[in-house]
């Protein structure tokens, strides 16, 4: 019962929360650059406008893929907030991004294809670390179920500092922030035109934006899992994490795709695996 309630709350509230986070993000980014920045509700104006624009579709297949992307992002987030199996959630989450890539490949446009290739590289870069994060949380709490991990009183962050740092690194990729903002140029606005979203416009682009809001709320929920033993600390940690990501976004240049791959796999191998080995062999489990 609690699970269904959590899923429903996510489906209804996450777009509003995600949009507000995006608005706060843009204001904070502007302040860091010495500007005033747009109103807090700017992301909602943007998406509202996209739904008002003429619906230009290059090929109708792209609409289906983007709808599937949005649907699977919602499914993975809803499963997460319903307290579901973390592995299933990660697989649904990956599938969602595969649909986004297929949507970009459905169009015969070199810009769209380069964006899709870069998105695939990003998926390759973050996937090992996100799975290691799930494994780490399993080792600490004894369950892959989000509900059990939240109910666990073990301070996961103390056992998994390396895994958490690794997760923060790939969070930069997932939140589409510099230095790994290579596939959509989400904050740069123009790099190889507009990456994976080049050929989406109007309502289709609006759906991509809404999916990104859902995705951000889900990812911040994942951050919370590391601090779930203390809810107040958890919320503070989520806020601090997001502000730190904005800071990193504004202080780094975008790197090449090789660096994204090296960083993603590097943190997975060094921080992630090493941390897990320490938990299993030295501490001997929890």
């Amino acid at each position, binding site marked *: 019962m609690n699970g269904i309630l959590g899923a429903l709350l996510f489906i209804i509230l996450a777009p509003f929360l995600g949009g507000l986070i995006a608005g706060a993000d843009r204001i904070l980014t502007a302040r860091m650059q010495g500007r005033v*920045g747009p109103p807090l509700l700017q992301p909602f104006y943007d998406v509202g406008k996209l739904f008002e624009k003429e619906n230009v579709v290059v090929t109708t297949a792209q609409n289906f893929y983007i709808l599937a992307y949005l649907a699977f992002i919602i499914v993975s987030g809803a499963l997460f907030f319903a307290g579901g199996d973390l592995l299933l959630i990660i697989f649904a989450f990956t599938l969602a991004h595969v649909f986004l890539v297929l949507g970009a490949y459905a169009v015969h446009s070199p810009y769209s294809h380069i964006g899709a290739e870069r998105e695939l590289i990003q998926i390759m870069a973050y996937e090992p670390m996100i799975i290691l994060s799930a494994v780490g949380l399993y080792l600490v709490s004894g369950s892959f179920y989000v509900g059990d991990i939240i109910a666990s009183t073990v301070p996961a962050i103390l056992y998994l500092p390396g895994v958490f740092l690794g997760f923060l690194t790939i969070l930069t990729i997932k939140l589409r922030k510099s230095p790994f903002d290579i596939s959509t140029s989400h904050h740069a606005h123009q790099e190889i035109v507009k990456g994976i979203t080049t050929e989406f416009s109007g309502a289709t682009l609006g759906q991509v934006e809404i999916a990104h809001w859902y995705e951000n709320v889900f990812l911040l929920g994942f951050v919370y899992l590391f601090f779930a033993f203390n809810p107040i600390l958890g919320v503070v940690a989520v806020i601090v994490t997001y502000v730190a990501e904005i800071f990193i976004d504004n202080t780094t240049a975008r790197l090449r795709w090789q660096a994204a791959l090296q960083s993603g796999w590097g943190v997975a191998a060094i921080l992630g695996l090493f941390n897990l080995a320490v938990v299993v062999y030295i501490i001997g489990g929890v």
Partner: protein
Amino acid sequence: MAFLKRSPWLLHYDASSCNGCDIEVLACLTPLYDVERFGIINTGNPKHADILVITGGINELNRDVVENIYEQMPEPKVVVAVGVCAASGGVFRECYNIVGGVDKVIPVDVYVPGCAARPESIIDGIVTALGILEEKRSRMANLTAEKEVARREAEAGS
């Protein structure tokens, strides 16, 4: 609802300008003028753009490019010609390769005077364009619905 005028994304194209106006257009994004206050984003993609900002008098080589960019922008859209070259060709008017004004190639909604146009007048021109954009949107809303119905009928008929 009128979201459009709260979220104008603009595309800037240099059609053989001397770069004077281009620098002033980019100056609008700097902390001093900060046009993101109005929700304006400088996008590089015509398919995401609402306002086409063109500087320069257009030459024979980029005439097709300008037409192509304009065609790719989804309705409703407005064109802002920035600087005196974009309005009439300016000092380059007599050159053998200059078309002489953006309105010789695509319809222009707002002309921003100046050589180079000052950031204040560019912002003023874009705010004027927002009014025209809103007008076009309300007219478009009906037109798009009609077009959509016609397309569905055509599909059902074939």
